[in-house]
């Protein structure tokens, strides 16, 4: 038993100093596809108009603007939002209830419910980039990340959003806003 602990502990201790994954700074094979998914081009519009339209869209969606650097066309924004899903919450409550009853009220600490995702912080960066040849053709690219915490405030997940539908939905709103900006509404 002691020998096993001997062998296990160093392994655990070493695991505490995690190493940098080899691909952390490498372009993935799908990098160009991802870039295309995250990018839309707008013609006959200045990059200032793009930034104004983006700010309006982000405000519509409840984001707060954290950073704008106009000469570089950079805009970063974030919002906190609910991360619970109804079905999961119901499932966890049901499991907690069953557990509580079957342990004769000994385990009623809501173990499953407390592990549920509770709050998420969404952060996004939008970069508007005029083309070298024609400054009125602007490529807009967004990248989105989120951090999710569970009901007890523990970090549950942190990830970069890769779902193409999310980007498509964003650009749909964006296109309308750019149109309104061009029309001066």
């Amino acid at each position, binding site marked *: 038993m*002691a020998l096993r*602990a*001997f062998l296990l*502990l*160093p392994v*655990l*201790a*070493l695991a*505490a*100093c*995690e190493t*940098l*994954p*080899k691909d*952390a*700074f*490498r*372009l993935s094979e799908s*990098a160009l596809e*991802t*870039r295309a998914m*995250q*990018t839309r*081009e707008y013609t006959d519009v200045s990059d200032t108009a793009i930034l104004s339209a983006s700010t309006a869209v982000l405000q519509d969606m409840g984001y707060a603007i*954290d*950073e704008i*650097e106009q*000469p*570089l*066309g*950079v805009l*970063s924004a974030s919002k906190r939002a609910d991360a619970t899903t109804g079905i999961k919450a119901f499932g966890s409550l049901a499991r907690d209830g069953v557990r509580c009853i079957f342990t004769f009220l000994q385990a009623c600490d809501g173990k499953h419910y407390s592990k549920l995702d509770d709050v998420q912080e969404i*952060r*996004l*960066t939008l*970069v508007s*980039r005029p*083309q*070298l*040849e024609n400054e009125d053709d602007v*490529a807009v*690219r967004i*990248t*989105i*990340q*989120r*951090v999710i915490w569970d009901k007890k405030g523990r970090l549950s997940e*942190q*990830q*970069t959003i890769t779902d193409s539908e999310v980007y498509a939905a964003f650009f749909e709103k964006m296109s309308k806003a750019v149109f309104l900006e061009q029309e001066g509404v």
Partner: protein
Amino acid sequence: MNIRWVFSLSLFFLAACASPNVAITDGGSQVQIRQIQTREYDTLNKRDTMRSVLATLQDLGFVIDNADYDLATISATKLQDYQIRMTVTVRERESKRLAVRASARFNQDPIEDPLAYQDFFAALDKAIFLTLHQVD
């Protein structure tokens, strides 16, 4: 007796990756670190170089925390199962050359592996190429 052994041994192994006060000013030779973290470019101007850096960071899944054109500094964060915080600066050198320096931390530790920076600059080379050839 056994427990004491296990305890001290685990402390020993923990010490291998823990650096309490040393962390404030530690790091390898300054010159060496700068060399690893810096590349010089003369293909694009400052603005388009910075735009290429932004594109590279986005390619690698970073979100931009901060960008300042005048001071030519960009900070960004990547969230995966881990966290990487990175700062990239662009400095103008003589005869239109630009020095791009990237420094990054992985979770709590500085990244000093030359290979990581090689990968980053390889990605930046590609972004600069794409900027020059108008592919987005």
